[in-house]
C-alpha cells in the first residue's frame, strides 16, 4: 500500500536564492577549515628555514627536504668528508649533503605508520564485527535485561576514556599488554564498541524481520539469512560505523603516548618527536602529518559510495 510512496521520491526543489546562499556558506566554511590543512601540506614542502621564517612564507620554493628528513636519520659531517664521497644517490642524499650531513639510516616513521594502520584497522574491524553481532542480537532476540545492558554499554562512554588511564596503565603492565599492538587494538575496540553497538542497532532495527523470516522459510539457517539478507542491507550502517571507529582509533593520542613507546607506538605520538637540529623539524612534521591523513581520506572516499547507495535502498513493501 505504501509501495508508491516509497518507490517514487518527490523532493521539493530548493529555490535559486537559497541554493546560492547555501553554496556561499559551504565555500566559506570549507575555506576556513581547509586553511590549517593547507598550511600543513605546504609546510611539508618547505625547507626548515622557510618553515619558521617570519613573516610566514606563502610563496616559497618547494623542497623535498621535509619528506627526506621524515624517513631518515642523519649525521653531521665535515665538508671534506662529504666532498670525498661519491656522487649522491638520489634526491634525498643530495638534499642532505647540502646541509653538510649524510644519511645514517631510516627513521622510525614507516614502522610507526604501519603500527597505526594495523592497530586502527584491526580495532575498527573488531569493533564493527562485535557491534554487528551484538546489535543484531539486541535487535532480534529477547535478551534478558536488554534495556539495562544497552544502557550499561552506553554508559561506558559517559566518562572520558582518559579518566581511567592510570588503572589501564597498571593493568596493562601486569598483563604484559603495554606497548603491544594487541593491547592497543583491544583498548580502542573497548572504547569504540559501545558506539558501534548503538549505531548499528539503529540500522538493523530498520531492516524488517520479514526478510530474514522469508530467507529462513526459503531454506536458510538464521546465520545464512543474516549473511545474505541482513548484512547487505546494513552496509550503510556498517560503513558509517566503520568510519567513526577508524577516525577515533587513527587519531587517538593520549593512550598512545601513555601505553606505547617502542614496538607498538603509533604515528600520532611519534610525529611530535621528530626533532631536527635546533628544534622541531617542521617540514618533516608537515610531511608526516600529510601522509598520515591519506589513509583516512581514501577509506572515507571508498565507503562514501556505500553510504550513498545505502540511502537509496529505502523500504520496499509488498
Amino acid at each position, binding site marked *: *500500500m505504501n*509501495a*508508491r510512496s516509497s*518507490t517514487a521520491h518527490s523532493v521539493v526543489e530548493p529555490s535559486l536564492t537559497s541554493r546560492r546562499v547555501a553554496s556561499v556558506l559551504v565555500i566559506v566554511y570549507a575555506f576556513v577549515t581547509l586553511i590549517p590543512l593547507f598550511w600543513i601540506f605546504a609546510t611539508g614542502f618547505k625547507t626548515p628555514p622557510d618553515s619558521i621564517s617570519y613573516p610566514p612564507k606563502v610563496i616559497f620554493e618547494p623542497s623535498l627536504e621535509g619528506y627526506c628528513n621524515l624517513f631518515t636519520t642523519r649525521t653531521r659531517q665535515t665538508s671534506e668528508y662529504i666532498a670525498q664521497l661519491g656522487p649522491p644517490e638520489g634526491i634525498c642524499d643530495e638534499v642532505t649533503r647540502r646541509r653538510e650531513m649524510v644519511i645514517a639510516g631510516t627513521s622510525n616513521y614507516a614502522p610507526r605508520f604501519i603500527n597505526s594502520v594495523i592497530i586502527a584497522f584491526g580495532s575498527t574491524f573488531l569493533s564493527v564485527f562485535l557491534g554487528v553481532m551484538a546489535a543484531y542480537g539486541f535487535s532480534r532476540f529477547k535478551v534478558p535485561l536488554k534495556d539495562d545492558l544497552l544502557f550499561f554499554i552506553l554508559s561506558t562512554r559517559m566518562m572520558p576514556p582518559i579518566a581511567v588511564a592510570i588503572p589501564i596503565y597498571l593493568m596493562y603492565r601486569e598483563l604484559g599488554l603495554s606497548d603491544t599492538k594487541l593491547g592497543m587494538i583491544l583498548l580502542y575496540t573497548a572504547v569504540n564498541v559501545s558506539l558501534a553497538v548503538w549505531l548499528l542497532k539503529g540500522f538493523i532495527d530498520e531492516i*524488517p524481520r*520479514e*526478510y530474514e*523470516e*522469508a*530467507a*529462513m*522459510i*526459503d*531454506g*536458510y*539457517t538464521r546465520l*545464512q539469512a543474516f549473511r*545474505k*539478507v541482513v548484512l*547487505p*542491507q546494513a552496509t550503510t550502517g556498517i560503513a558509517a560505523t566503520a568510519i567513526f571507529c577508524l577516525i577515533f582509533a587513527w587519531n587517538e593520542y593520549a593512550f598512545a603516548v601513555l601505553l606505547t613507546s617502542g614496538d607498538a607506538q603509533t604515528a600520532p605520538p611519534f610525529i611530535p618527536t621528530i626533532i631536527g637540529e635546533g628544534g622541531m623539524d617542521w617540514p618533516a612534521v608537515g610531511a608526516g602529518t600529510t601522509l598520515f591523513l591519506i589513509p583516512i581520506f581514501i577509506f572515507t572516499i571508498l565507503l562514501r559510495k556505500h553510504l550513498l547507495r545505502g540511502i537509496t*535502498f*529505502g*523500504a*520496499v*513493501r*509488498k
Partner: protein
Amino acid sequence: MAEVVLSHISKKFGSVTAISDVSLTIGNGEFIVLLGPTGAGKTTLLRLVAGLETADAGTISIGGFDATKSAPSSRDVAFVFQQYSLYPHLTVFENLAFPLRSPIRNMSEKDITAKVKEIAGLLRIEDKLQNRATQLSGGQMQRVAIGRALVRSPSIYLMDEPLSSLDAKLRGDLRVELKRIQHVMGATVLYVTHDQMEAMTLATRIGVMKEGHLVQVGTPREIYTDPVDLYVASRLGTPSINSLPSKDFQVAGIPDTVHTIGLRTEHLQIRKGKKGSFIGTVNYVEHLGDQDYLHISINGHELVTLSNPDDGLSTGDEVSLEFVNALYFDRAGNRVHRGKHP
C-alpha cells in the same frame, strides 16, 4: 505436497490471545482460504504453520511428521508475506532464484535459470528479471513475491493476502492463474484474503476466523448457505446479509428462540404492489450496471437487496415482500434451525 494437520493450537502474545484452540486439517491438494476481520489471527496462524512462531499449545504435523518444534527451513513450506516480500538488495532474478540457491536444495545454476524463467513467464515478469526489486510497481512486486513461492514445490503454500495490492483486472487474472496452477500442480494452499470473490472462487474450503477462533470450516457453498452464526453469515454475500429483529416481523412457524432474521437476496421475493406478508417502500435504487441495489424500508428497518434492472422498480414504489427460507439466529447470534416440518 502433503497433508497438514493442526490440532488444538493456541498462541498468546503477552496478554493478547492471537490463536485460541484451532484445529484444522488441510488435505493434500486442498486450497483453504481463511477469512476474518483484521486482527482475527490469520497471519499468526500462517506464521505458526511456517514455524516463525511457536505454538503455546497444540501440535502441527506436515506430511505425517510432527513439525511442532522444527525450524522454518526444515518444514518445507513457502510463504508469501503480506508485506516486505522482496529482498531489496537483489534483482528480480536473484529474488526468484534465492529459494533455489539455498544450501539445502543444492540445485545446479542451469536448472535454477530454467525454473526462474518458467515462473517469470507464468507471471508475466520476464522483462523485469534484471531490475532491482525496488524498481518495480507494487503489483509487480507482489507478482515476484508469488513467483518466489512458486519456484519451489513445497509441502504447503502459505499466502497472506498475496493479491491485495493489485488492480482489479490483474487481480482477476492472477486469481484464475493461481487456481490453474494449484490445479495443475496439485498444490496444498493455506490462503488469507479479505476478498470474498477470491475466497469463493479459489477455496475448496473456507475457514472463518474471529478473535483467534476458527468459527466454521466448510465449502464455500456451505459457508454461504449454512452459516453457524450471524458472524459467519455476514462474512459472505454482496450486499451483506440483512439482519432484522424478529419481534417486528410476524413469521409463521418461527421458533421462539429466534432473535434475528437473516435475509439475503435469495430469501426475498419482491413484487410491486401491496398484497403480501410485508409491505415496504423503495428508498432508493443504486445502479451497478448489470444489477441494482434496492434499499427498501420496512417496519422501520432498512433492507438492501439485489434486483434486476428490468423489474422497473423506482424510488417511492410500494412493494410486497415474502421471506423464503430465511436464516434464523438466536440472541447470541447462533443459528437456530427450522423445525423439520415448518
